C-alpha cells in the first residue's frame, strides 16, 4: 500500500500529463504485478460494487470520531468529496501499513460485499487501525470510486505500453471489456501474443473532433471525404468471433443482453467480423428520437412487449475486422467497400443495417442538407477522410463531427450548489429557470460548465452575498443573474415542475446586458421541442456524443 499511496499522492500533486505517465511507469516497475493489476483496474475507473454504502461510511466516521452525523454531512458538503472528508475527519493510529494494495483489497474491501452492516463497521474500523495517514485518502477512494486522479485510460495504456514495450493501442484493446483483476493478470495484458479471447474484445473507439476547430477550407476537396449522417444513438462495436457475438458500448460495457434482437440478427452476417456503428431506436418509418431508445437502456433481457414497441437497430458504418484480419490500418475507402460487400443483401426491416453515405458533390450542397438535420432527427454530419486509418481515441484529422447548432435560451439563476473536485467550495452548479404563463420562474435546467474561472469566482461571490434560503446543500439565490444556455434538445418530462427537461444544457455565457425579466419563457422553450413529444425517462448517463457511459 505504501507504493500505491505514494503513487496516488504524487499523481495528485502533478499537473502535467507526461509527468503522470512517467510516474505510473515507475510504479509498474517497482510494484508487485498483483498490485499493479489492481492499480490498473482502479485507475481505469472501476470500483468494487456493494462493498459499503456512502451513508454507512458517513455513519461510521461519525461513530469513530464522536462527531454528530450532521456535522459529518456538513463537512462532506463543504469538502465536496466523501473520500477526502473521511480522511480529514478520522485520525490514523499508526504511521503506515505493511499490507500491499492487493492484500488490502482481498482482506478488507472484497469481503465487505458479503458482510452485514455491523461487520462492515468493524472491518472499516480495523482498516482505520492499521492504515497510516497517507493511506487514508487512497483507501477511501477505493471504497467510494471515482478514482481517476487525472489519469485517463489513454494515459494508463501509454504507461503500461511503455513498461511492457508494446504499442499503446494494443494494450488499450486488452484493457477493454469486462475484465477484473481476478480474470486478468499483468502478464496476460502485456503478453505480446494475440490470444483467442482478445478477438471478442472491442477495439479502442476512434473518436471524431468537432469541426469548429477546423476551418472548412482546410478540409480541401469534398471528394476526399466520406460524409454520413451523425446518428443520435449509442456508439457500439458488434463483434462476431467463432460462435460468439458481443455488443460493446463505447464505455466498454457489454450491452448485448439489452439488445437480443441485434445479437440474434448477427447470425445472418459473416463470421469473424468487427463492425463499428450506432445502436438506434428504429421503427417501421426508420429513425426514432433518442428518447425512445432510452426505454431500452439499462434493461437486461427485455420482454417481447417492449421489444415490439421499442424496436432498435445497429447501423454499421465501419468494418474493423474481416475473416479475423485487422483492417484498421487500411484506408477508409477500402474498409467501406468491404463493409458494403459484407452487409449486402440484408432485408429492409432487419435489426442490422448499413449506414448510408451522402452523395452531395459540393460543400454548398452539403451545407444546405445539413440544415435539415434537426428535422431528420440526426445530430448533423460525420466527415471521414477517405484515406484515413482507424485510429484510437480522439485524434485530429481523420474524423470530424459537424454538429447542428445547439438551441439557445436566456435563463435566470434561481439556486446554486457547491461543486465537486476542482470546484469544491465554489458555488458552481446552478439551477436555471424561465418564466411560465403565470409569471413564475420555473426551473428547466441544471448546468455546471461553460464559465471561465474568473466568471465562476464572480458568480460565487454573488451567490454568497445573495442567499435567500437554505434547502440542504442548495442555496436559494436572488433571481438576478441571466445566462445564455445552450442545449441539444427539449424533452417533455413528468419529473420536472416545468414539464420539460433539456438535453446537455451548458452555460454559454453570462448575459450582463439582460435583466431577469428579459429571460425567455417556458412557451418559447417548449416550442423548441419541435415534434419530439415522447416522454423521456432519465437515469442513464450519456456523454455529449451520445455514447452510453454506464449501464
Amino acid at each position, binding site marked *: 500500500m505504501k507504493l500505491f499511496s505514494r503513487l496516488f499522492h504524487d499523481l495528485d500533486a502533478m499537473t502535467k500529463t507526461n509527468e503522470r505517465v512517467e510516474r505510473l511507469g515507475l510504479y509498474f516497475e517497482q510494484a508487485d504485478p498483483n498490485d499493479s493489476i489492481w492499480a490498473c483496474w482502479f485507475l481505469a475507473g472501476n470500483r468494487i460494487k456493494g462493498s459499503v454504502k456512502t451513508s454507512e461510511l458517513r455513519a461510521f466516521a461519525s461513530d469513530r470520531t464522536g462527531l454528530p452525523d450532521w456535522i459529518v454531512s456538513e*463537512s462532506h458538503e463543504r469538502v465536496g468529496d466523501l473520500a477526502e*472528508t473521511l480522511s480529514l475527519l478520522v485520525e490514523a493510529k499508526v504511521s503506515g501499513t505493511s499490507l500491499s494494495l492487493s492484500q488490502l483489497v482481498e482482506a478488507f474491501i472484497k469481503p465487505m460485499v458479503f458482510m452485514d452492516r455491523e461487520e462492515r463497521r468493524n472491518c472499516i474500523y480495523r482498516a482505520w487501525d492499521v492504515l497510516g495517514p497517507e493511506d487514508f485518502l487512497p483507501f477511501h477512494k477505493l471504497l467510494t470510486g471515482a478514482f481517476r486522479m487525472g489519469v485517463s485510460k489513454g494515459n494508463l495504456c501509454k504507461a503500461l505500453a511503455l513498461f511492457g514495450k508494446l504499442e499503446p493501442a494494443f494494450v488499450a484493446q486488452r484493457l477493454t471489456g469486462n475484465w477484473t483483476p481476478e480474470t486478468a493478470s499483468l502478464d496476460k495484458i502485456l503478453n505480446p501474443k494475440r490470444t483467442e479471447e482478445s478477438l471478442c474484445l472491442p477495439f479502442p473507439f476512434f473518436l471524431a473532433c468537432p469541426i469548429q476547430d477546423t476551418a472548412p477550407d482546410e478540409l480541401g476537396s469534398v471528394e476526399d471525404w466520406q460524409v454520413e449522417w451523425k446518428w443520435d444513438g449509442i456508439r457500439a462495436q458488434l463483434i462476431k468471433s467463432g460462435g460468439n457475438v458481443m455488443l460493446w458500448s463505447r464505455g466498454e460495457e457489454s450491452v448485448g443482453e439489452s439488445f437480443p434482437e441485434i445479437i440474434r440478427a448477427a447470425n445472418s452476417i459473416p463470421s469473424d467480423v468487427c463492425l463499428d456503428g450506432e445502436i438506434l431506436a428504429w421503427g417501421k418509418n426508420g429513425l426514432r428520437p433518442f428518447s425512445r431508445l432510452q426505454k431500452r437502456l439499462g434493461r437486461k433481457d427485455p420482454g417481447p412487449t417492449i421489444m415490439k414497441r421499442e424496436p432498435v437497430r445497429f447501423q454499421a458504418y465501419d468494418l474493423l475486422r474481416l475473416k479475423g484480419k485487422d483492417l484498421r490500418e487500411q484506408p477508409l475507402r477500402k474498409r467501406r467497400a468491404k463493409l458494403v460487400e459484407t452487409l449486402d443483401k440484408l432485408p429492409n426491416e432487419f435489426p442490422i443495417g448499413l449506414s448510408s453515405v451522402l452523395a452531395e458533390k459540393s460543400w454548398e450542397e452539403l451545407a444546405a442538407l445539413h440544415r435539415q438535420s434537426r428535422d431528420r432527427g440526426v445530430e448533423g454530419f460525420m466527415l471521414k477522410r477517405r484515406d484515413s486509418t482507424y485510429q484510437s481515441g480522439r485524434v485530429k484529422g481523420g474524423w470530424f463531427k459537424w454538429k447542428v447548432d445547439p438551441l439557445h435560451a436566456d435563463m435566470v439563476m434561481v439556486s446554486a450548489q457547491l461543486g465537486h473536485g476542482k*470546484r*469544491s467550495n465554489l458555488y458552481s452548479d446552478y439551477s436555471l429557470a424561465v418564466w411560465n404563463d403565470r409569471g413564475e420562474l420555473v426551473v428547466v435546467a441544471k448546468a455546471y460548465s461553460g464559465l471561465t474561472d474568473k466568471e465562476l469566482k464572480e458568480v460565487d461571490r454573488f451567490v454568497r*452575498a*445573495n442567499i435567500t434560503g437554505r434547502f440542504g446543500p442548495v442555496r436559494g439565490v436572488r433571481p438576478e443573474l441571466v445566462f445564455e444556455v445552450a442545449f441539444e434538445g427539449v424533452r417533455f418530462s413528468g419529473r420536472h415542475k416545468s414539464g420539460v427537461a433539456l438535453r446537455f444544457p451548458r452555460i454559454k455565457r453570462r448575459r450582463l446586458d439582460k435583466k431577469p425579466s428579459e429571460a425567455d419563457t417556458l412557451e418559447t422553450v417548449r416550442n423548441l421541442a419541435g415534434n419530439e413529444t415522447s416522454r423521456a425517462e432519465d437515469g442513464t448517463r450519456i456523454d455529449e456524443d451520445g455514447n452510453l457511459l454506464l449501464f
Partner: protein
Amino acid sequence: MIISGKPTAVLTNTTKGLYCPAGDFYLDPRGSVKRALVTHAHSDHARPGHDIYLCSDPCLPLLRLRLGGKAKMESLPFGERRRIGDACVSFHPAGHILGSAQIKVEVSGKSYVVSGDYKPDKDGTCEEFELVKCHGFVSECTFGLPVYRWKKEEEVFTQINHWWASNAEEGRPSIVFAYSLGKAQRVLSGLDTSNGPILMHPAAHSFLEPYRKAGISLPEAAKVDQAKTGEYAQAIIVAPPAVEESGWTRAFKGCRKSLASGWMTIRGQRRRQNLDRGFVLSDHADWNGLVGVISATEADEVLLTHGNGDALARYLCEKGIRAKVLEKPSGPQEEKEP
C-alpha cells in the same frame, strides 16, 4: 445578553462594528470613529480613518507601518488594565501574529473578551496565546468545521524544506505564497538556510524589521524588487498571494508555486489555484483549537464571527454551551468566501 441594540448593553452590534457604550469606543471598527481599539494589524481589523487608536505595545510598530505616521495611536503592555469611561480594558496575547491581542472589556464586575483572530498552537514568531476566562466570549470561527485540523508547525516546515530541496535539485526556484504580515515571517522562521538563498517580496520584507526589533529571530532574506532571469534555481521566494499572477512572479522562470494557508486542507482549493503544492499552515485556530478555547473560557455566552459559524454554534449548543452566530446588523445574509 451582552450584545444587543439596547444602549444599556456592554457591547452593541452596530454597522461600524462592536461598540462599548460604557467606554464610548469601538473594537476593530469600519468607517470612521472617535476611538478604535484594534486587536491586530491585519487590514480587515485595523482600518484607516479613525481619530485615535489603541492597541497592544508590540502591535504598535506594525500598526504604524500599516496606517502611516500621522494617525494618533496609543498602546498598552499586555495584561495592563486601563479605564476608559465606565469600562476597563486590557490586551491579552492571541497567538495569531506578532502583537495580536484578545481585548477584554470589563463593565460593572462582568468581563467580556473579543478574541480577534487567535491561534492556541505553537508559533515562535508571536506571543503565546493566553487563555482568558470571561463571562462572554466573542470568538472568530474561520475554520469552524472538524475537517480543519493542523499538524505541528515543525512537520509543515519539514514539508516545505523538502519541497524546496527537491525543486532546487531540479534547478527550479520555489515560491511560497504567504500573507505579507505574520504568515510570511512564520514561514521564514522555519526555512532551512542550508538549502539555498531566501528571497522576499518587498511587501513581506517590510515587516521583517519590526519583527526583529521585537526580538524574533529570523533567517536572512534578500528583498527582491524585480527578479533577474536565471539566478534563482536554488532559491526559495516568499511572496504575498496577491502577486501570484503578476509579472513579478512570472520573472522566476520555471518556478514551482505553493501556498501556505489553512484553506489548503482541501485538495480542490489547491487544484483550482493551479498550485504545485499546498502547505496547511494557518494563523487561525483549527476546529479543536476553537472548541478547546471556547470551552476553556467557561463563558456563559459565546458569539461567533468571521466565518461559517452555523455548524460550530450548533455543535457547541449540543454540548451545552450557549453559542450563536453574531449576525451582521443589516444587509443580506452572507457567506465568507473560501
